[in-house]
């Protein structure tokens, strides 16, 4: 390839990168501007007189519907919901994947296929019965209910991740451990867990991103006190009390995005692996 076309190549790639980054830049710039500066200046200009007023309002003062306490309580809700849901669904998924690969029994393949289909359904088709069930169980409007829902509908994916990983572990390893006298759980803890680090990372990050970013379950199943941050963000943006505060909206959006962005920056490798593993499923 000659120098001219090489230059062209880089130019196109750089443009695409600019396009990808532009919304993030606009969000950041806007969040540090005052409303006057937003009205006067340009969408893409850097803030002339940076202020964190919008951020503090988004965090602790903005109205999300009737409440005006900012995103903070809902951010905490999201943490309280996401962390247990991720851990529980990951651990169950790991045991499932292990049982499905190294302790096959008649019907285990069928069971896996049946589970896999759970990845594909549109959740709309289970919303109505689930809403009634949570009501009957007394979980309605509680974080516990959300944890339950996320675990139940996350299991298909976590099982898939671990199954596909453990399929690559030679069966002879498990046989050797059985001959050595180890049982189901001993083999899992002593032999498989020590080599499962990467897949745990992939699964935890995937689940964290999915559950943190969820909106549908949050908006349907959460009460006003148990809403996750995505629902609160949407309410915040929709709540119109007089003048529209775009800077607060943007600061709130970044706050809601921060945990997953952070995970992406710190462990992007595993995030990508999860995406591609989820993609080549089945």
């Amino acid at each position: 390839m000659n120098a001219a076309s090489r230059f062209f190549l880089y130019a196109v790639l750089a443009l695409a990168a600019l396009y990808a980054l532009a919304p993030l830049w606009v969000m950041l710039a806007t969040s540090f501007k005052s409303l006057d500066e937003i009205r006067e200046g340009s969408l893409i200009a850097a803030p002339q007189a940076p202020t964190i007023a919008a951020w503090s309002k988004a965090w602790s003062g903005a109205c999300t519907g009737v409440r005006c306490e900012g995103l903070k309580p809902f951010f905490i809700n999201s943490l309280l919901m996401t962390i247990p849901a991720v851990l529980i669904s990951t651990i169950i998924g790991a045991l499932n994947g292990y049982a499905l690969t190294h302790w096959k029994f008649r019907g285990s393949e069928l069971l896996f296929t049946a589970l896999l289909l759970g990845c594909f359904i549109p959740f709309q088709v289970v919303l109505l019965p689930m809403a009634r069930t949570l009501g009957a169980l007394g979980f309605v409007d509680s974080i516990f209910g959300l944890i339950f829902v996320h675990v139940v509908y996350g299991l298909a994916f976590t099982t898939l991740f671990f199954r596909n990983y453990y399929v690559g572990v030679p069966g002879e390893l498990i046989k050797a451990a059985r001959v050595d006298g180890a049982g189901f759980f001993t083999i899992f803890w002593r032999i498989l867990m020590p080599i499962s680090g990467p897949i745990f990372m992939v699964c935890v990050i995937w689940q964290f991103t999915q559950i943190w970013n969820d909106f549908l379950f949050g908006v349907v199943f959460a009460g006003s006190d148990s809403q996750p941050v995505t629902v609160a963000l949407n309410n915040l943006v929709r709540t119109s009390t007089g003048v529209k505060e775009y800077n607060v909206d943007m600061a709130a959006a970044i706050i809601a995005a921060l945990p997953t962005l952070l995970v992406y920056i710190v462990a992007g490798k595993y995030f990508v692996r999860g995406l591609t593993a989820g993609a080549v499923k089945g």
Partner: protein
Amino acid sequence: MTVHSADRWVPKLVLSPTLLASLIFVYGFILITVALSFTESRLLPNWEWAGVDRYADLFDNDRFWVSAKNLAIFGSLFIVISMAVGLFLAILLDQKIRGEGFLRAIYLYPMALSFIVTGTAWKWMLNPGLGLERIVQQWGFTDFTFDWLVNPDKAIYTVVIAGVWQSAGFAMALFLAGLRGVDSEIIKAAQVDGANLPTIYRRIIIPSLRPVFFSVALILAHIAIKSFDLVMALTGGGPGTASDVPAIFMYQFSFSRGQLGVGAASAVMMLMTIMAVMVPLMYAEAKSGSAR
């Protein structure tokens, strides 16, 4: 049985909660939703048999057809453009680019965001008063207007713009992984045969990515049909109901308007749509997979 059996029932015991959850909360609930769609249910479930009345309601409802049409527009454009951009970027990145990892990370980061965040950001950028429209006007094109967000005929296209922004990097990542998986000896053989780079891509590499095309299309279709949060955050289905999609229709009829039966019927239609897209795609993939 004797001691031997412990290791036989333990795996089944471990799997049983998941199996039970799947049977009840996936398959059982689908059946209940299907059943609901054949009842007189309104604000509360009412198990009085209504035959296909709810489906008749659904098909008589203009709003449902608007949402179906929007899904068709959004789905097809979203999938085609995301794949085209993704494949294009993947091929460019495949040319031994310096800083490839960095660029890849930039293209892919939107995938880590919630659709609500994406929608909020684009809603701000596309707003006619202070957003993109004004920048272009400030650049001197004073007649420029860009009011798609509030234009009932164009609002659904803003969803496409935001959706592509979020998902093109994902398509890129999958295509790039596919490109890297192509046997380098085949490419060398083609070079020895005298093929130039565009020909190698067109005739050899891209055709061998067939399974990747399938999975990318499958996942994007899945995202499109389920799309709810992006539209909620960006247009809220508006102006009016102009950018409604089935997921919003289902949500509003079920939870805001107290029409459980119609909501259930629309949910069943969504399931059917996903199956109508997935089953042939997966079948084709499985078939081409076994033929290889």
